[in-house]
C-alpha cells in the first residue's frame, strides 16, 4: 500500500540541502519517492510500505534538518495541488482556443472572401465551444452562487457577457451575418481573466508552517515507566521526565525539588519562573532547567493547553462580510449597464426591435466589467508579491482593504514589543575580568537555560575551552563545576526587583563573586515607531498576560497612555477586548494571542510566532522588524490608489464604449480593438502604480 507523508523542513536554503535530503531518502528501500520543494520548504514522501514518520525525521535529524510532520494542513495542500492542476488545464485550453480563434478572425478582418469567411467563422465558433463548456465552468459556479446568495459578484456579468455573446454570435452565424461575431474578443478576455486569477491564487497559497521553536509536536514521545507514550496518550498520574527545552505537555505537579519553566508564550510572562516540589506546572510551559520529573494531574484532553487549542479551533473567524471596493464598484457598474441596455431595448421596440436588441447586447458585451475583473486580482496579486519582497506574508487579499479601516491597534508585550528573550543589562562589579568571563562561559557551555543564552550573546565570541571537573546542571541550583580546586556555581537568585529583572550570581566556594541582571529588552526604536503609527491610524493599546509592574514600565517607555495598558490578561480576556473594540488590529506572537489574532479585523503575527498564532493571523512578518507594519500601511495605500485608478480607467472606457454601442458604432472589429486596449491600459497602469 502506498502512503504519502508531508513534512515541513526547517532551514532549506539552497540546492545542496535538497540534494542531501533526497539522496538520503532515496536510499531507503521502503521509500518510493521523495521531493523537496524550495518554494515552501515542504518534503513530500511516498512510501511503498508503511513507515514511521519518526523514523524519517530521525534520519533527517542526523544530517542536520529538523522537520515537522504536517497533519492538519496536508489535506488542504493536496487539494490545492489538484485544484491548481485543473485550473492550469483550463487555462491551457482557453489559451489554445483563443489564440486559434484570433488567427482566423484576423484573416476575416483582413478581408477574407466569401468561402473563407464562412469556413473561418464556423471554425471560430467550433473553437469557442471548449472555452464555453470547459474553461469557463468556474464562472458559472460563482455566478450561480451569487444569484443564490443574493450577492452581485463580478462573475455574474462575465457569465452573462460570455453566454450572451456566444448565443448572439451563434445566431448571427446561423443567419450568415458574418460581420456580427464576437468569438475572438470574448475568448481572449476569458483567457486573460483566468490567467490573472491563477497567479493570484498561487500567491495566496504558498503559506505553511514556519520555523517555530515552541511547538506541540503530537508525535513526540515521553517515557512513562518502561513504555513510551505520545503526548495525546498521557493520562492522569503518569510519571515522566521532561528534558531541557521540551514542552510540558499536560498540567502536572513537580516531583523534583526545583524546576524552572518558561511560560512566556502561554501567558506572556517574560521571565522563567522557579517552581518548587509539589507545585503545579501548567501545560504548555517550556522546561528551561535541567531535566525534571513530573506527575500528570490531568489527562491530555483535559489539560489547559489542549483546551486552549480546542477553543482556538472552535472560534470562527467572523470578519463581517463587507463589500470590498472592487466588488462595490462592479455592483454599480453592472446595475447601470443592465438598466441602460434594458431601457434602450424597450425604447427601441417602437421602431426597430432587432437593431435595438443587437445594440443592447453589444453594450453588455463591450461593457462587461473586463477591466474590473482583471484589475482587482492583478492589483492584489502584485500587492502580495511586493509585500513578500519586503518580508511580509499576506494570507488573504482583504488585508489591503481592511488595514486602511483600522481604528485601534493592540500590541502584545512579550516577544512583540520586547525581544522575547532576556539579555544582560547590568553586572556587579561593573567590569568583569577576562578569566572570570571564560569561567562563566565554560560553566554555561552546554546549558539551554535562557541565562546561558544571554551570557553567550554577550561574550560568546571570546570563548576558550577550560578544563572543568564535575561539571553538571541541576534544576533550581544552576550549573556548577570544579576548577583548579575551587567549586564554582552559577545560579539564578531571588531579588527584590524580581518583577523587573532576573538576577543570577556566580559563587566561588559559596561566596558571591559577581551578580548579573537580565532584562527582556524593548526592541530598538519602538517608541518612534509607535508614535508614527499612532498618528497614522489610531489608538494604541498594550495587552499582556504579564504582571502589572513590568507591563506598565514597558508601556510608559513605549509612550502608551496609562488607561490603554492592560496587564494580567488571560487569552479569553484578550479575545474579549478585541471583540468589543471597533476595527481592531492585533499584533502578537504567543499561543495566548491566537484567539485575539483570529478575532481581529487584521491579525499580524510577528517573526518567531508560534504555529497557532501563525495559522490564525492574516499577516506574518518574515523579518524580526516591526517597522514592516508602517510599510504594509503604505503598500495598502498604493494598492488602494491602483484600484481606484483602475476603476477610473474602466469607467471612462465603459462610458465611451457604451455610447458607441448604443449609437450602433460597435461591431466586432471595433470591439476587438477596444477590449484589448482597455485590458492593456489596466495592466500597465497596475504595474506602474505598484512598480
Amino acid at each position, binding site marked *: 500500500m502506498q502512503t504519502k507523508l508531508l513534512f515541513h523542513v526547517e532551514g532549506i536554503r*539552497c*540546492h545542496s540541502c*535538497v*540534494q542531501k535530503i*533526497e*539522496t538520503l531518502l*532515496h*536510499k531507503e528501500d521502503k521509500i518510493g519517492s521523495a*521531493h*523537496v*520543494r*524550495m*518554494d515552501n520548504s515542504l518534503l513530500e514522501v511516498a512510501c511503498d510500505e508503511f513507515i514511521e514518520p519518526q523514523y524519517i525525521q530521525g534520519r533527517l535529524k542526523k544530517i542536520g534538518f529538523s522537520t515537522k510532520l504536517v497533519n492538519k494542513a496536508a489535506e488542504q495542500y493536496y487539494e490545492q*495541488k489538484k485544484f*491548481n*492542476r485543473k485550473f*492550469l*488545464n483550463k487555462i*491551457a*485550453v482557453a489559451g*489554445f482556443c483563443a489564440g*486559434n480563434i484570433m488567427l482566423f478572425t484576423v484573416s476575416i478582418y483582413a478581408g477574407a472572401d466569401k*468561402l*473563407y469567411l464562412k*469556413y473561418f467563422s464556423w*471554425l471560430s465558433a467550433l473553437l469557442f465551444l471548449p472555452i464555453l463548456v470547459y474553461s469557463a465552468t468556474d464562472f458559472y459556479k460563482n455566478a450561480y452562487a451569487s444569484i443564490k446568495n443574493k450577492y452581485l459578484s463580478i462573475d455574474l456579468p462575465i457569465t452573462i457577457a460570455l453566454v450572451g455573446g456566444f448565443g448572439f454570435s451563434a445566431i448571427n452565424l446561423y443567419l450568415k451575418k458574418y460581420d456580427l461575431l464576437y468569438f475572438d474578443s470574448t475568448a481572449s478576455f476569458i483567457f486573460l481573466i483566468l490567467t490573472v486569477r491563477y497567479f493570484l491564487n498561487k500567491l495566496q497559497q504558498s503559506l505553511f508552517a514556519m520555523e517555530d521553536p515552541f511547538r506541540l509536536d503530537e508525535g513526540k514521545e515521553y517515557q512513562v515507566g518502561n513504555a513510551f507514550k505520545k503526548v495525546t496518550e498521557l493520562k492522569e498520574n503518569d510519571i515522566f521526565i521532561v528534558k531541557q527545552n521540551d514542552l510540558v505537555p499536560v498540567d502536572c505537579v513537580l516531583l523534583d525539588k526545583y524546576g524552572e519553566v518558561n511560560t512566556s508564550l502561554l501567558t506572556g510572562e517574560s521571565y522563567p519562573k522557579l517552581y518548587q516540589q509539589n507545585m503545579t506546572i501548567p501545560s504548555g510551559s517550556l522546561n528551561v532547567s535541567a531535566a525534571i520529573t513530573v506527575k500528570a494531574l490531568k489527562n491530555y484532553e483535559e489539560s489547559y493547553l489542549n483546551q486552549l487549542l480546542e477553543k482556538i479551533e472552535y472560534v470562527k473567524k467572523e470578519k463581517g462580510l463587507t463589500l470590498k471596493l472592487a466588488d462595490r464598484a462592479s455592483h454599480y457598474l453592472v446595475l447601470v449597464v443592465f438598466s441602460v441596455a434594458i431601457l434602450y431595448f424597450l425604447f427601441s421596440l417602437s421602431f426597430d426591435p432587432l437593431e435595438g436588441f443587437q445594440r443592447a447586447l453589444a453594450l453588455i458585451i463591450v461593457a462587461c466589467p473586463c477591466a474590473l475583473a482583471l484589475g482587482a486580482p492583478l492589483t492584489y496579486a502584485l500587492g502580495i508579491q511586493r509585500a513578500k519582497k519586503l518580508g511580509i506574508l499576506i494570507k488573504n487579499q482583504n488585508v489591503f482593504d481592511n488595514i486602511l479601516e483600522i481604528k485601534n491597534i493592540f500590541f502584545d508585550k512579550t516577544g512583540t514589543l520586547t525581544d522575547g528573550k532576556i539579555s544582560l543589562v547590568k553586572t556587579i562589579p561593573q567590569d568583569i575580568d577576562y578569566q572570570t568571563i571564560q569561567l562563566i562561559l565554560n560553566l554555561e557551555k552546554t546549558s539551554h537555560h535562557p541565562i546561558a543564552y544571554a551570557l553567550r550573546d554577550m561574550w560568546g565570541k571570546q570563548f576558550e575551552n577550560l578544563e572543568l571537573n564535575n561539571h553538571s546542571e541541576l534544576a533550581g541550583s544552576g550549573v556548577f563545576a570544579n576548577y583548579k580546586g575551587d567549586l564554582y556555581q552559577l545560579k539564578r537568585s531571588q531579588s527584590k526587583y524580581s518583577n523587573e529583572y532576573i538576577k543570577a550570581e556566580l559563587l566561588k566556594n559559596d561566596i558571591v563573586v559577581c551578580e548579573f541582571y537580565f532584562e527582556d529588552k524593548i526592541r530598538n526604536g519602538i517608541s518612534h515607531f509607535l508614535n508614527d503609527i499612532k498618528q497614522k491610524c489610531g489608538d494604541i493599546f498594550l495587552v499582556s498576560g504579564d504582571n502589572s509592574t513590568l507591563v506598565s514600565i514597558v508601556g510608559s517607555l513605549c509612550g502608551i497612555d496609562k488607561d490603554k495598558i492592560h496587564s494580567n490578561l488571560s487569552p479569553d480576556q484578550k479575545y474579549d477586548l478585541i471583540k468589543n473594540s471597533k476595527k481592531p488590529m492585533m499584533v502578537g506572537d504567543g499561543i495566548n494571542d491566537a484567539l485575539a489574532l483570529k478575532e481581529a479585523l487584521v491579525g499580524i503575527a510577528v517573526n518567531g510566532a508560534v504555529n497557532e498564532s501563525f495559522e490564525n493571523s492574516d499577516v506574518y512578518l518574515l523579518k524580526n522588524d516591526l517597522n514592516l507594519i508602517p510599510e504594509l500601511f503604505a503598500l495598502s495605500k498604493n494598492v488602494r490608489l491602483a484600484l481606484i485608478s483602475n476603476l477610473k480607467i474602466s469607467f471612462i472606457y465603459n462610458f465611451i464604449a457604451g455610447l458607441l454601442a448604443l449609437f450602433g458604432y460597435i461591431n466586432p472589429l471595433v470591439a476587438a480593438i477596444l477590449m484589448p486596449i482597455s485590458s492593456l491600459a489596466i495592466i500597465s497602469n497596475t504595474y506602474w502604480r505598484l512598480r
Partner: protein
Amino acid sequence: MNILIVLIPIALGLGFFFIAGFFWANNQGQFDDVETPAHKILFDDIGVKGSIDE
C-alpha cells in the same frame, strides 16, 4: 483554397496533440513546483535510486 482545407485540420490536430501532451504533463504534477527543478539540474545523479555512493 484547397490546400487550406488540408492544412488547417492538420494545424489544429497538431494543436490538440500538444494540448493533450500538456494535460498529461500537468496531471503528472510537472508544473506543481516551478522553482526547485531549476536548481536540480545542478545535481549529479539525483532521483535515480541506489545510484549515488555514500
